[in-house]
């Protein structure tokens, strides 16, 4: 029972992280039909910006919980500045082109961002762990957890609920759905397509940066973190079904729980768990768990 509790808590904590780092990827694919390899770069930009803001903030001996707000601010900054710039400057030119070209362009963006990160922040690591350490611990099932893990889980839940409400219950969401299903008819009906694209991409970027910013206090922020995250993010959205928000949530939870069980029960196979879950799901449903069927145009 105790082990089961610990497995469940660890699984949910890891799933929260997975959801945060992958949900933006699925959103961007859902709306723009672009597999954004540079997603990991936005995660890294969020992590660096978050780390720098937190370090500046704690230097001034300010109210400690305010450092958590710095993480949110970092995500919004990256999303609001870099997101529209990349969408307007680069992606707009490749909508509707062959997928291989889109992949190459986003891969090029990824490489450029890798060097930009090194140019701006240098090769030395940043430690912004005050938000992680300040919250203290809480004991669940006889194991001490950092309360920050609960903050992470709460942030993922909040992000998920807000995004779901936005897509399913707002006017912007209805426009998104219309654009996803038929961009041409939507445009003909007066939907401002470039604006919807820019907003959707920026939102995806903000979510990637949010994942990075909230991860920053748990890790040493170093060059190379972008590439690590892109693999797991792709695994989650492929399991969930490309373009599906619910899929990202269920995919993250599935991978999180299986990995956590492996760590506690069969640590030797932990390395393969993500790929095992991916292979198992794709064998049964090659399109992923929640992929919607697409109407074929005649």
């Amino acid at each position: 029972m105790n082990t089961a509790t610990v497995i469940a808590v660890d699984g949910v904590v890891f799933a929260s992280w997975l959801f945060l780092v992958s949900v933006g990827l699925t959103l961007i694919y859902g709306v723009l039909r672009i597999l954004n390899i540079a997603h990991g770069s936005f995660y890294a930009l969020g992590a660096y910006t978050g780390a720098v803001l937190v370090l500046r903030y704690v230097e001034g001996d300010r109210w400690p919980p305010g450092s958590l707000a710095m993480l949110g601010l970092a995500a919004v900054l990256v999303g609001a500045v870099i997101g529209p710039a990349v969408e307007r400057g680069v992606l707009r030119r490749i909508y509707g082109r062959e997928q291989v070209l889109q992949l190459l362009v986003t891969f090029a963006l990824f490489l450029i961002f890798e060097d930009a990160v090194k140019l701006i922040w240098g090769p030395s690591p940043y430690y912004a762990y005050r938000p992680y350490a300040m919250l203290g611990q809480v004991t669940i099932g006889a194991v001490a957890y950092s309360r920050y893990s609960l903050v992470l889980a709460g942030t993922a839940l909040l992000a998920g609920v807000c995004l779901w409400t936005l897509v399913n219950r707002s006017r912007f969401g209805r426009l998104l759905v219309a654009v996803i299903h038929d961009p041409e008819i939507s445009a003909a009906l007066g939907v401002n397509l470039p604006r919807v694209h820019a907003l959707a991409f920026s939102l995806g970027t903000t979510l990637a940066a949010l994942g990075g910013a909230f991860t920053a206090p748990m890790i040493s922020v170093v060059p190379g973190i972008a590439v690590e995250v892109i693999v797991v993010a792709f695994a989650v959205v492929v399991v969930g079904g490309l373009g599906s928000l619910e899929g990202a949530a269920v995919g993250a939870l599935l991978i999180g729980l299986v990995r956590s069980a492996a760590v506690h029960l069969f640590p030797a196979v932990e390395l393969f768990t993500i790929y095992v879950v991916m292979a198992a799901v794709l064998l049964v449903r090659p399109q992923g768990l929640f992929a919607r069927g697409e109407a074929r145009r005649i």
Partner: protein
Amino acid sequence: MVPTRGGTARARGGRWTLPVLLVLVLSGAVRPVVAAAPAPGAVKVGIVTFLSGAAAAPFGIPARNAAEVLVDELNAGRVPAPYNKVGINGVPIRTVVVDEAGGADKQVAEFRRLILDERVDLVIGYISSADCLAVAPVAEELRALLVMFDCGTNQIFEERRYRYVFRTHGHQILDNVGAARYVLRQKSAVATIAGINQNYAWGQDSWTTFRDSMRKLKADVRVLAEQFPRLFAGEYSAELSALLAARPDVIHTSFWGGDLESFLIQGLPRGIYAQSLLVLTTGDTVLPRLGRDMPPGVVIGARGPHGALAPDVPLNRWFKQAYTARFGTRPVYPSYHMSQALLGVKAAYEKAAARGGWPTKEQLIAAFEGLTFETPSGTIRMALGGGHQAVEPVAYGVTGRYNTALKEFELTRVITFPAECVNPPEGVKSADWIAQGFPGARCP
């Protein structure tokens, strides 16, 4: 054919020539005339270390920095004795620095380029064991001198013999045998151990050596958990829970760089150090980085007597001062490994040159084999692998009091285990040595 009389007479006269010449040569009256090679304009050294990627900040850059400061100071003749001769035997050192990132295939190509196009006299390189294993046979094939400066695998000289390859620091066996011996000196009642190590050769080999050494030294030690997260995973929440739930007396990790720091950042607030004795075999690199946030009572290693565990000798005091003055932070163990490689090469060249003239590659190799030389980490002996593999002592300590001037924790209860205590004897494979219960080990 019958010899002619004249021919016999010449032979009779020649009977004395060789012994007389030999006596004269041995007495020093006549020196055989060998054309001494002229000294070159510079000794060109290829330096290969990580300048990008995850291993750059904690390892590659500190090693590059050490090379930079040492080469400059050597060329200026400012390094204390026995290295006070300018450059190498009066010849300045020039370096060509190459990034180690990109994998083993790329490094093989880079090595060929350094030797064949750049025409370097030798290459000092490699942090990654995979790169060392890939490049060593190529050095042999090209008959090019390679001095490995940081990679940890014990396979290199235990699996085959090399003529052109040297390694001027100890391999991973000393880290983990030393860690096991240290743990038992600190906590003789250890009953349970656990490990968290990266899931590739370095992590697996380090853990196996530590675990097997512990069991050999104390038969009733039980293993409670063996965690192997992937390299650069960064997130260890579940692994930490498993370790906290298992409650072992000792937790061993050979994590390095960003992984080690992330592990500590996540583990320390969860009280992992209070519950178990944490053993960090590469912990030296995090001391200046985490500063006050390291807790007391954590076992710290430096893969030899380096960094915070380096001996208080004049050469070390000079090295620390020169490095810190230039880079604003103290040298960590990869910096010390680099200094060993450079000073070993200089010592070998100068030993070979002492015979007169600039040494040939063969003479240099002969001088390097079995060489004993001084470094900031103390005396290094090329004692294994037919004189090509160094042995060195290993030191461990425990974080004690925070030193506000140094801005890092001081290490207390430091024990230095001599090389004979933590390295297998020549000709014995490390795994066999541990399995047989460390035959021939001489420990204090």
